[in-house]
C-alpha cells in the first residue's frame, strides 16, 4: 500500500489515532494549498475510502474498527470540503489566520442593500410567476459566483508573496462572505425554478 495519508503510521502502516481537529489536507495526503488538482483529490479519496472499508476491519479489535469508521467519516468530510473551491478557501483561510474573526461580519452597507433588494426582487418575480425572470437572475448569480471563484487562486498566491498580507486577507474574506450571500440567493432561485 502506497502510504498517502497521515491517518496511517509511516513505519508500521496501521491506522493511528487522530484528533477531532485532524487536518483535511493531511488526511487526504495533499499539500496544504489552495491550488489543488481535482483529479488527484478524487483519486486520493477513492484510494483511502477503499483502504478504510469496513470489510478490512471486520476482524480487527473494536478500537481499530471504531477508528476506521471515524477515519472514513473524516475523509468524507475532507473530500466534500476540499472539492468545493469556496469551502476549500474558507478552510484554508481559517487555518492560516484563525484570528480574522471580528472584521468578518462587516459588509459594506451598499452590498447589503443590494442583497436585500435582490431578495425582494426575487419575491416579486415569484409573485408574478415570472419564470424567465427567475432564470435570468439565476444565470446572473452563477456568472457573479464564477467571477468570484476565479479570483481565489490569485488571491492565495498574492497572500504568499504580499508584504502587507492584511489587505489581501480582507479582500479574500470579503469574497468568501459575498459567496455566502449570493449562494443563498442562488439556492432560492433554483428552488423557485423547480417549483
Amino acid at each position, binding site marked *: 500500500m502506497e502510504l498517502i495519508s497521515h491517518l496511517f503510521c509511516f513505519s508500521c502502516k496501521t491506522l493511528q489515532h487522530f484528533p477531532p481537529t485532524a487536518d483535511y489536507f493531511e488526511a487526504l495526503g495533499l499539500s496544504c494549498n489552495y491550488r489543488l488538482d481535482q483529479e488527484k483529490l478524487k483519486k486520493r479519496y477513492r484510494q483511502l475510502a477503499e483502504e478504510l472499508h469496513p470489510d478490512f476491519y471486520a476482524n480487527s479489535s473494536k478500537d481499530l474498527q471504531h477508528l476506521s469508521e471515524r477515519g472514513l467519516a473524516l475523509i468524507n468530510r475532507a473530500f466534500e470540503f476540499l472539492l468545493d473551491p469556496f469551502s476549500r478557501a474558507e478552510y484554508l483561510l481559517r487555518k492560516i489566520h484563525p484570528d480574522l474573526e471580528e472584521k468578518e*461580519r462587516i459588509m459594506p452597507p451598499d452590498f447589503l442593500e443590494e*442583497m436585500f433588494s435582490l431578495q*425582494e426582487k426575487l419575491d416579486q418575480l415569484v409573485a408574478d410567476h415570472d419564470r424567465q425572470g427567475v432564470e435570468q437572475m439565476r444565470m446572473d448569480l452563477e456568472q457573479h459566483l464564477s467571477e468570484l471563484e476565479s479570483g481565489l487562486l490569485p488571491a492565495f498566491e498574492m497572500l504568499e508573496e504580499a508584504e502587507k498580507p492584511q489587505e489581501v486577507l480582507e479582500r479574500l474574506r470579503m469574497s468568501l462572505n459575498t459567496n*455566502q450571500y449570493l449562494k443563498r440567493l442562488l439556492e432560492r432561485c433554483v428552488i423557485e425554478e423547480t417549483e
Partner: protein
Amino acid sequence: MAYRNKVFDHYNDPKNVGSFTRDEEGVGTGLVGAPECGDVMKLQIKVEKDRIVDAKFKTFGCGSAIASSSLATEWVKGKSVDEAMKIKNTEIVEELTLPPVKIHCSVLAEDAIKAAIDDYKSHNGVNASKV
C-alpha cells in the same frame, strides 16, 4: 397543553412585517447581514420623544432568523431608545430556546436593533453610539 415552538409561532405568524419610509422623521433603519449563512435582516424603528412607538422588520433567512427579528420588533416597542440599546442576544436565545447552531440569528437581531438606533440618532441630530 401541547408543546408550542416559539420559533414556529413567529415564523408562521410573524409580528410587524413591513417597512416605514426611510426619510420619515423619527425613523431609524438597521440593515445587517450574517456572513456565515447569507441571511439579511432589515429592522426599522419609529421614535417619538425618545420612545420607540413602532417597529417593523423584513428578514430573508431561516426560521430562527425570522423569529429573532420578529421578537426584536415586539420587544423594542414601548421602550426608550436607551432601554432598547440594552437588549442582549442571550435574552432572545432564551426566549426562543435557540440551539447553539442558531445563536448567530439572535446576534443578528441584536445587531439590527443597534443599527436601527444608530441610524435614528444620526438622522435626528443625536450623537450615534460608538460600538
